[in-house]
């Protein structure tokens, strides 16, 4: 079985994000970039399936700038077999990413695509679902556990009310939630081996899909600062404030 794992280069989760002064976006200059943490979980899950003998090949793919090779090399060091970078310096929205991934799926014919449920930069939480729709494949999103057997995959999903398990026919799309696994660190010898694994660099033009943005960003601002709270003397005062000041009752 072949598994495709899309990974995204995002601002590191530790970085305190600053909005650019012209409100056109966030400042990425000299900021640490990393693999999207949910995608790390996706790579880890694929590697575990390979180690268990369920999968034979793992292909990592990223759509992003030249430097996204760093994240692909990390995926290779963690255990992916080869990688594809679709190079672009432009912003690509989830729909465009899904369309590009559909093309990659058609070329590579994986039986399973595992990807993060969302990227921590724009938190869209759309790519996996859109890709499933475009391919007409089954999808199991927010996976906290997967079990692959007999041509189907059982995905335990984290939903509002608790856990739900869906059984999907392959080929299928799985998006990962935080508790699916704890990703391994690459090792130094594997980092060196990753250098020698194949990494194809493609252009968006190679795929012939329309990636023009459908959204227009008007402005980007910091979230409003939280105001200091007030202490109330009694429950009656609290109810009064909720009714008359906050207007939530």
């Amino acid at each position, binding site marked *: 079985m072949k598994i495709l794992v899309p990974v995204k280069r995002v601002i590191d989760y*530790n970085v305190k994000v600053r909005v650019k002064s012209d409100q056109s976006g966030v400042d990425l200059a000299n900021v640490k970039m990393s693999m999207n943490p949910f995608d790390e979980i996706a790579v880890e899950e694929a590697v575990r399936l390979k180690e268990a003998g369920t999968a034979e090949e793992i292909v990592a793919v990223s759509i992003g700038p030249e430097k996204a090779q*760093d994240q692909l090399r990390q995926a290779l*060091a963690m255990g992916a077999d080869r990688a594809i970078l679709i190079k672009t310096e432009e912003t690509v929205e989830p729909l465009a990413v899904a369309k590009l991934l559909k093309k990659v799926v058609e070329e590579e014919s994986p039986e399973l695509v595992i990807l993060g449920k969302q990227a921590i930069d724009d938190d869209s939480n759309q790519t996996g679902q859109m890709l499933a729709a475009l391919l007409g494949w089954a999808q199991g999103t927010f996976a906290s556990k997967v079990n692959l057997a007999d041509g189907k995959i059982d995905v335990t999903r984290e939903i509002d009310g608790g856990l739900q398990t869906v059984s999907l026919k392959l080929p299928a799309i799985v998006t990962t939630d935080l508790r699916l696994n704890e990703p391994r*660190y*690459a*090792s*130094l010898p594997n980092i060196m081996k990753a250098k020698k694994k194949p990494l194809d660099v493609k252009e968006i033009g190679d795929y012939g899909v329309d990636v023009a943005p459908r959204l227009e960003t008007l402005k980007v601002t910091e979230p409003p600062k939280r105001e200091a709270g007030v202490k109330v003397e009694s429950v009656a005062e609290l109810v009064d404030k909720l009714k008359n000041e906050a207007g939530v009752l």
Partner: protein
Amino acid sequence: MSLIVNRRDIDFLFYEVGDLDEILRNGSYTEFDRGSIDAVLDLAQNMAERAFLPFAGALDANEPAFDGEKVSMMPQVGEALYAFAEAGFFAAGFDQEIGGLGLPSVVCQAVQGMFACANLSVAGYSFLTVAAANLLNECGDAEQKAMFLPKMLEGKWFGTMCLSEPQAGSSLSDIKTMATPTDDGHYRITGSKMWISGGEQEISENIVHMVLAKIPGGPPGVKGISLFIVPKYRVNLDGSVGEKNNVSLIGLNHKMGYRGTTNCALNFGEAGECRGYLVGEPHQGLKYMFNMMNEARLAVGAGATMSALGGYLYSLQYARERLQGRHPGDKDPASPQIAIIEHADVKRLLMTQKAYVEGALALLYYCATLVDRQRLSTDDDERWELKLLLDILTPVAKSWPSEFCLEANKHAIQVLGGYGYTRDYPVERHYRDNRINAIHEGTHGIQGLDLLGRKVRIHDGAALKLLTAEIEKTLAAASTTVGREGEARTLKEALDQCHSTIMRISQCSDVNRALANATPFLDAFGHVVIGWMWLRLAIAAINGLESGKEADKDFYRGKIAACRFFFNYELPKTEHVFRLVGSLDDTCLTVTPESFIGE
């Protein structure tokens, strides 16, 4: 921002100040390129931030305990070290032929630095193991290496260095631990050792102690000291861990800082035979140990710098966010408060830290690069020169950070004010962690004696001449760099005064008097060396400003400002010290023990 590393600074030191690109074009280093070095640093940073940093404060508050049978400590220590071992970091700096990764020394410096800054106590176990493995690799025979090295490089067995004894610290000639030959080829070790970091723990399957001891009938003093491998558990013929080797823990020392690394009083051969295996020739132990000691001393300087970096980064972040007061010129109490980083005196506190920390870091990377160039060089003369240069810089690289980066930690506490003095913030812990560095691996005073009594004189002053020539290269570059000409002149004057001080000292026939002020000399000599480093950094920053990216301009301007700071606030201090030392002042030498309190 990261609280354990400034990656931009590492890149600057690697590729703009230093020439790592050139180093990577040589010898076995050609396997690495910038991409793979970046990946190694990414891995180290991620692991240090995720597996080491989060419990540094908790480990300080919950130090290892000994119940009379076993040492226990927070499980996170073992988990972090297993992850470190699993990733191959123990073997990172060793040659590939023996199972290492062969990473350049300067890159190892950066990697180890991140772990040290994140959680010094945990990183301590790995540094000690690597140092012991280095010693074994350098001086052990084939059989010994086969038995111990692979396990140490995998991080399954840890190592220690056992030099000091309760009655013999700086004065190793007075050690009493004995090694008596047996008919079976091994030695029987008896005696006590003190201050043994990592001397006992339950994390690794075995502990390999590198022990200094005397063989009966050998020459007196340091000439009669031999080096032995003494494992905690004997090793079976198949390489597995066997029965106990009668190394017993008397107790743990309760330290001011660096608390997560056990520090032990050990007894050898108290309950039964303790086997030791002689390393190399008898009576050569101290020589072997001191070969490795240079590396250990650089590691101490690096540890000191990293503790200070931790304080610097934390206090910088705090100063940017903490709102307090207004500019002295602003008399309107209704005007909004400003972040304390806007206050000139807070900037001074931060600038002092920057100048100390980044100056020390530059020196450590410079020294590590000398190690790399020594490894790569095929020319005996060149290797000899590189070794001499490293010899004279080692006491400085050990002691200057231990003294002045501790000062930086003091300033970090000051930035946080009362909060900095509480255990709720990490800056006081960094200070306590750092305080050991002027004490272990040769005290500050010993380093002064080493520099003034030995290193500036060895081979008719050849090391000093080489260092002077290196500094003069930078002076020549600076004198033609716009804006740096004045600093070039200032450094030249300080260097000349340093030379004339050494000249005066060397003309004094009374050794006691000549060396009486060796420690102040060490500090001032260190300031000259760090001044030289800052000039190198500033020249590279000016190049960067001219040709670098727009986004890096603040970084470069900061370097130039820190260079200016060092030359205006720090380097002038040397003038007085050199004058004092050169005058052969005997105030301290002649004061009698009774005159301190009159009895």
